């Protein structure tokens, strides 16, 4: 792959439009979410006299049933979605690499870990999240854990299968003959091969996590209700759909666009890392 330079961007856009579009939307969302305090109002200030207002110059997306600025809530809500999505993807990738590499190199651990993974696969995400949150109370941390656990089996199996295939390659044996010790062989010769499939899988996990967070917040077991999230915005606005459609369209459309962007990025990365397309670079 090599280093990415600004001058490469037009070529990337032409060769891999999916990566370009998906990555671009995602980057824009991240910038908007980070810069939210600079242009949006306070998402928590209530104003009983300005409830369910239509869009205006003061509040671009109007206000919700408690008179809060929908635009502000939507962009602050993006922070929750992105934090949950990205950290769930990162945590799943990290855990998956750890379990997958160990399982690929140690038969004993493999037998135990893969049976545990079989067990984890049978747990429904929503049910696990509800159980965990009823134990600890709502919070982003516990939400991420609840999303990561059911995703671990697929990612660690993916990594394990790559490790099992790569460890038999002659260049790995050549490294051993050259006196390389196991940690170095794993790090230098085996782990790099797991990165392309991990990035593709990571994008899928990220999109899934964003949707799961929204679903759980919609059900009222996600983030605490005072924190704006797309899921709980949609939940609290669904009664006023006919009066103030922006209250539900703003978070709804943002959710759809974000998940679409992440999925596009994932598909694009899969094409990018496909060895058949690599030759033409």
């Amino acid at each position, binding site marked *: 792959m090599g280093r990415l330079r600004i001058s490469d961007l037009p070529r990337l856009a032409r060769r891999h439009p999916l990566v370009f579009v998906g990555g671009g939307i995602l980057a824009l969302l991240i910038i908007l979410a980070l810069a939210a305090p600079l242009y949006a109002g306070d998402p928590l200030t209530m104003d009983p006299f300005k409830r369910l207002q239509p869009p205006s110059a003061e509040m671009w997306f109007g206000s919700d049933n408690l008179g809060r600025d929908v635009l502000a809530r939507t962009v602050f809500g993006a922070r929750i979605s992105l934090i949950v999505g990205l950290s769930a993807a990162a945590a799943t990738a990290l855990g998956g690499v750890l379990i997958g590499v160990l399982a690929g190199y140690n038969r004993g651990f493999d037998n135990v870990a893969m049976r545990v993974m079989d067990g984890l696969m049978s747990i429904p995400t929503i049910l696990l999240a509800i159980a965990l949150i009823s134990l600890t109370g709502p919070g982003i941390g516990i939400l991420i854990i609840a999303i990561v656990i059911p995703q671990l089996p697929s990612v660690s199996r993916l990594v394990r299968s790559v490790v099992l295939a790569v460890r038999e390659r002659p260049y790995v044996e050549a490294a051993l003959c*050259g*006196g390389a*010790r196991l940690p170095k062989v794993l790090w230098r010769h085996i782990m790099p091969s797991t990165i392309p499939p991990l990035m593709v899988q990571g994008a899928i996990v990220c999109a899934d996590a964003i949707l799961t967070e929204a679903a759980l917040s919609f059900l009222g077991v996600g983030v605490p209700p005072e924190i704006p999230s797309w899921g709980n915005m949609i939940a609290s606005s669904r009664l006023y759909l006919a009066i103030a459609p922006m209250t539900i369209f703003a978070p709804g459309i943002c959710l759809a666009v974000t998940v679409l962007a992440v999925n596009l990025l994932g598909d694009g990365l899969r094409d990018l890392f496909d060895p058949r397309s690599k030759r033409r670079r």
Partner: protein
Amino acid sequence: MTGPLLKVENLTKHYPLGSGIFKKSIPVIRAVEDVTFSVEAGETLCIVGESGCGKSTIARLLMRLVEPTGGRVLIDGTDIAGLKKDALHAWRRRMQMVFQDPYSSLNPRLTAGQIITEPVENFERLSRKQRNALAADLLQKVGMSPEMMHRLPSELSGGQRQRLGIARALALKPSLIIADEAVSALDVSVQAQILNLLLDLQQQMGIAFVFISHDLGVVEHIAHRVAVMYLGRIVELAPSEALFAKPVHPYTEALIAAAPVPDPTRVRLEVPLEGEMPSPINPPKGCAFHPRCPLAIERCRIEVPPLVPMADGRVVACHVRAPAERQMQPTHVDLQLGH
């Protein structure tokens, strides 16, 4: 010289087929059976045989990429099979390997320079400057230009890649290089270049080679001594000239007769070898070669022939041509010719 550089005694490798938690006895593949040979410093020993006869397993056993089922591998008198991790790590400097496939034996993500200096970096820390100097030096040794060190393997030709494989093996200045079919994946013209490179390196640096091949033309060109393997066992081990001039074991004879000769006018002896090599899971009783051997007698079906030393310094395992009780000149019973 005190003793041989490499001494292999009764080396045996059986691969179990499947795990035997529920079964009492598991069938095994007898890949290498009771193999004994030695290599002197600066010498080239070739191991030849059909595919599946255990040649590559021997290479992997010598490098300790797989653990032997039995027997010993001695380097300068030290048994490497008994070495613990750290001792094995230190010992790896003595012996290096060149792999068969120049494509899959190089990590596609590393540059040529990184690939060939990695073995040294496993033992000592190198500055960027030292690393570049080492890479340039190694590349020059194998006849490549130092600028190549920044290339990826995918940007090099097959011959260049194999040169890289050799440079990697040379990096630790080993006294023995094991070459497992090191030229069989290359074009004939490139094969000759690589073989000559190996011969030059042997002369300059006094490296001993264990050269594994199925190509008798290549073997005749480079070998000092040749070991012929059949179904995991050595059937004949002889100085190269003697072996090609007068093969004693019927299998060696058939192998040499079957090799293509680049001379259309030369009449080839047709010694038809019938059938396939038997399965190493269930090898024939007695001499493993007897079902295909035109000379087989009753004794061959019952008793495994031992390796019997001959007057000209070779050892042969054959009841007919080298009977164990009379150690003497080979009794040369002629094979039945095809017509």
